[in-house]
């Protein structure tokens, strides 16, 4: 159906794609796999005409094509569903499905009856029944995704690309999505499925192509591969080299953080656990299971309705972020750009933000002191930045993340909650961040790691809690920590609720 040959795409200073070859057939689900920054998105945008490659050829539906606009690719039958859904929340399902090409009746006016009927048809073909008159904003994210897919069906879509569709929906919804996608495949649509989650790839794909650092690694039938081989293709080295040695918590210590019956509706229903000094505790589960919300509820950035928390042996039941920070609890958010960094301020201001009082004198902020502190962090975490007075916007994801580590390790020495600590970070920086986490634990900090990347949880944590739908459904320790066990607890299939 589509064939890309020798595609090279260069951005200022970076070769995002280097001589990449890719080929997908009609009636197959072809997974495109790679780490963050491997070039998946660039490749997709090249297919879609959003980027024009410096070199290489595109062949679609048997013809050589050179898109110059996204619209040309769309008209030819390529439909892309981005992670950010392109929907209009105040409009109906049907209007969204037909956005820009609504059926017209007399005088060229929109024929709503036909539109609703045809929208219902498209949803039928997908096997997903939604009221075409419903407003998008009243739908769940999973249903919204189905609307996006239905959009593809009303056009004559030959190639459908799904860019990490499960990042925003629950496991149960994901299975429904897989079912719908397979149905489309059986109708002859070529589907390209982008993900970095191995379990999904095995559940849905017929073939898989792996990219790494902008280069083509290879294409395989999914039946010819096992997980380890796939990981090796993706990462290019053995997992053992990536993660530091595991250690348990410091011996004979009292828990530094205890959480009992924590409730924060709607996502957190009942969560209890202990965290010990020097421990790296994992919190696993599917996206939407309520993991980040647990962190927010402990930290005080989201209201709790019930539960008892102690921090360093003292009750912490009227939480605010300020109080949490003052008691040595830090929270590194998963949304680095949206909730983490202040892009308009320099690196030093980013580091000292939670501990401004430490730098406040009767004469105001002690800028000199602040700069020295920031320089410390630059050295400590080997941050590639010219100096503390430089901005953080242009830095790589890894360096940005290290600045946030600088911020939180300076502010908080008791407990750190790390939400997706390596999201959007390249492999090299990942290794560094894992070492940092290990070192902090060795220094006696209790660390709670929330991650969607199971290899990370498995490789890093000495104990793992698994969440599903607001509850802790399992706890795994030591040698029992592996992806299968965690997934069993994370999805309904484990059957028994441990909590």
């Amino acid at each position, binding site marked *: 159906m589509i064939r890309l040959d020798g595609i090279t795409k260069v951005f200022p200073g970076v070769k995002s794609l280097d001589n990449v070859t890719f080929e997908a057939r009609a009636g197959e689900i072809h997974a495109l796999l790679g780490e963050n920054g491997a070039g998946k998105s660039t490749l997709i945008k090249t297919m879609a005409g959003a980027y024009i490659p410096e070199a290489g050829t595109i062949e679609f539906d048997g013809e050589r094509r050179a898109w110059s606009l996204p619209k040309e690719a769309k008209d030819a039958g390529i439909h892309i569903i981005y992670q950010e859904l392109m929907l209009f929340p105040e409009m109906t399902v049907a209007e969204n499905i037909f956005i820009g090409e609504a059926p017209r009746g007399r005088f060229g006016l929109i024929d709503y009856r036909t539109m609703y009927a045809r929208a219902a048809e498209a949803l039928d073909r997908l096997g997903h029944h939604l009221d075409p008159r419903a407003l998008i904003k009243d739908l769940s994210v999973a249903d919204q995704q189905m609307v996006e897919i239905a959009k593809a069906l009303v056009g004559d879509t030959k190639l459908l690309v799904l860019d990490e569709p499960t990042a925003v929906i629950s496991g149960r919804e994901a299975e429904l999505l897989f079912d719908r996608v397979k149905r489309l495949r059986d109708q002859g649509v070529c589907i390209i499925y982008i993900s970095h989650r191995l379990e999904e790839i095995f559940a849905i794909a017929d073939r898989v192509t792996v990219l790494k650092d902008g280069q083509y690694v290879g294409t395989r039938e999914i039946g010819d591969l096992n997980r380890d081989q796939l990981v090796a293709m993706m990462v290019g080295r053995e997992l053992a080299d990536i993660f530091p040695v595991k250690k348990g918590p410091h011996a004979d210590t009292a828990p530094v953080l205890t959480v009992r019956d924590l409730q924060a509706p709607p996502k957190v229903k009942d969560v209890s656990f202990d965290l010990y000094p020097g421990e790296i505790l994992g919190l696993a589960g599917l996206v939407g299971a309520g993991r980040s919300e647990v962190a927010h509820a402990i930290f005080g950035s989201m209201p709790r309705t019930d539960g008892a928390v102690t921090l360093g042996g003292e009750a912490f039941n009227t939480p605010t*972020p300020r109080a949490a920070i003052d008691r040595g609890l830090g929270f590194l958010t998963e949304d680095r750009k949206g909730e983490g960094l202040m892009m308009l301020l320099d690196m*030093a201001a980013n580091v000292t933000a939670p501990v401004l009082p430490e730098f406040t004198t009767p004469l105001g902020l002690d800028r000199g002191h602040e700069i020295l502190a920031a320089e410390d962090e630059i050295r400590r975490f080997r941050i590639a930045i010219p100096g503390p007075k430089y*901005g953080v916007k*242009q830095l790589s994801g890894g360096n940005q993340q290290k600045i946030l580590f600088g911020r939180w390790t300076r502010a908080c020495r008791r407990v750190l909650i790390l939400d997706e600590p390596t999201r959007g970070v390249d492999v090299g920086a990942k290794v560094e961040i894992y070492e940092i986490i290990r070192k902090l634990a060795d220094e006696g900090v209790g660390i709670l790691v929330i991650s969607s990347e199971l290899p990370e949880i498995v490789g890093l944590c000495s104990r793992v809690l698994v969440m599903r739908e607001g509850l802790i459904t399992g706890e795994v320790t030591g040698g029992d920590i592996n992806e299968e066990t965690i997934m069993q607890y994370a999805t309904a299939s484990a059957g028994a609720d441990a909590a």
Partner: protein
Amino acid sequence: MTEIAAKPGGEPILAKLQQFAVPIALVALMAVATAVQPSFLSPNNLQDILTQAAPLALVVLGQAFVILVRGLDLSVASLMASVAVLATAFNATSDAMIPVIFAAAIVVSALVGLINGLLVTKRNVSPFLATLAMMIVLQGVRFYYTQGSPSGSLPEGFRFLGAGQILGLPVNVLAFALCFGVLGWLLHKSSFGRKIYITGGNPAAADLVGIRSDRVIIACYMVSSVMAGIAGLFLVGFVGTVDNWVGRGYELDAIVACVIGGVALTGGRGTLWGAAAGALILVLIFNIVIILGLPVQAQLMIKGLIIIIAAALFARAQKA
């Protein structure tokens, strides 16, 4: 003043130009004015201009605080007039009453700012509408109280505050200098100022580093209102008479001055220096219009052009 705004990595020329755009514009305008009228640079004339500029500049300082936290304060001009009416309500004749009048004005202004801030933070009303409504409400209350024509009198001393001099320096300019010093310290040196920049630049991040952004925002609205109240009193002193429209148009002029001075409406970007310079640029332009013998109304046209051009230049520089 310490520059905590980030240095961009590879600095595009436009961004560099932007840093110096404000001083360059100031110097260029002075040059133009001097070329047209050599006496422009005479101490007397400069003094006049500064005296004229001071009330606006006071409002601009406050407006900058609000804009830095992604807000807007349209109620300042209406508040200035209301405070002026309030001052006459005392019917005071003795200069000893001046501190009392100031205290009353500051308390009332702070209250207005508090309400603006609460509407914006707690009720999530857009700053534009919250302060617009406040502007209309204040106007109604003021007119109702005065029944359309203010009466009552001000102590003689107000004239001195508005147009008098100490050691050859205009009193209101000294007052501005004092406010500029205090607010400049607050914004650029104190931890409160840092919190303003953090909140304006990224409110979500502010909450997660333990900053109560709501309180910071409310405080900024209060700063704006209090500065407007003070400016109202000085302006009354300068004009000499109270009417219901003292300070009319200052809300927009203050926003224009901030934008010219590089304070971005998107929040978190800009300095008090820039805002004050913006005010001065605006007043200089008004003056040049007069010097050139153009009709006063040409000020409006030039103001309109300048705000669009300045905003466009800053927008472009920020994109680059």
